[in-house]
């Protein structure tokens, strides 16, 4: 039982302290799983984990995509078939510039979102993470459509 919860139960004990803060104690299977102090926002660990994954995906996915784009002429040399012939401009644009820009931009956006979440501003952090995810998804889909790589 928390002694700070003025809304949960009213104690007859004269020594109980009610400091007037609205707190909620969520329970799981009858066990108290922490206390939510509604007057002081707290960082969301799950959202932070999501931002962590997004930040590394923003580096990993463009890397994988660029590797696949540059693997295409190699596959042609090996005798493999390619989805369609790939020009140098496509190689430069979809294999180098767009992945680099995407990696830098999306990782910076995700880092800003993670920083916001760490500062207990979960809403703003979620917005930054959503923008980062949008940039990453857009670049992935564009590269896939341009080069014919069936990545996702």
């Amino acid at each position, binding site marked *: 039982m928390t*002694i700070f919860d003025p809304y949960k139960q009213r104690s007859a004990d004269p*020594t109980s302290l009610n400091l007037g803060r609205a707190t909620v104690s969520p329970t799981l299977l009858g066990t108290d*799983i922490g206390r939510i102090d509604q007057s002081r926002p*707290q960082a969301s660990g*799950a959202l932070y984990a999501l931002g962590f994954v997004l930040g590394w995906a923003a580096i990993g996915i463009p890397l994988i995509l660029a590797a696949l784009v540059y693997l*295409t002429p190699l596959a042609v040399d090996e005798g493999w*078939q390619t989805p369609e012939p790939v020009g140098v401009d496509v190689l430069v644009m979809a294999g180098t510039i767009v992945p680099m820009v995407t990696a830098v931009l999306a990782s910076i956006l995700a880092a800003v979102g993670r920083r916001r979440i760490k500062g207990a501003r979960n809403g703003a952090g979620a917005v930054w993470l959503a923008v980062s995810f949008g940039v990453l998804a857009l670049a992935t889909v564009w590269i896939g459509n341009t080069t014919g790589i069936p990545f996702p």
Partner: protein
Amino acid sequence: MSWFPEQSAPVPRPPAPTPGAPGGAPLDPLERARRQLADQLAKHGNLLQQSEQGQALQAELTRRVETMAQPWQRPPQQGQNPTQGTSAQPGADSAGRNPYGQNQAASNQAGQGRPGQNARAAQNPERAAAAGPPMTGLVVANVLLVLSTLAFIVWHLVTWSEPLVDAVAACGDAGGTLDCFTGDAMRTWVFLPLVAAIGAFGASAGARIETRQHRQRGYLLVLAGFALLALSLSTSFS
């Protein structure tokens, strides 16, 4: 009592004077001293009992204040300025960096914080960390998660590199396209383990944040990390 004496109830007569009654005849001095002594004894007993109750209440209050989880929920302590931690000369050198622009010396003179105002959260991370109960179980689970993720990566590289290379080479020999690099073998043995490992590390980071905030839900994050690893493991074998 009525104005009419015939309607009023009979007035109770005072009891007959007895030698021991207080309103009666004068006591002998020995008896009076005995009664005064008994009265004083009873009074002292009452006082003693009240002070014991007060001490018990005070002890209970102190215990409850000390078991409060977060430092910002504690009432301001005497002899400690809530706006600035510990400084020997609070009036002189901190008047310039008082963020509210009010007279620091006057507020110091007025008292330590306003009545009804809680103490601020400690800026010192050591004090903030020591404020709550130590979450040893969560820390141990988190460390276990990180170690098992590292072990998972090493084990995965050792175990599944050869099947992966074989599968991709067979796909290429069979006249496959670039699908070989994004096919089922790559998804099962590269992409999903990558996502699982990164997700497990992310869950570990989130659980660390929850540990810092003394929230028990960090266990759920650790559990999610282990679930990701288990999912990748079972997919690799199937």
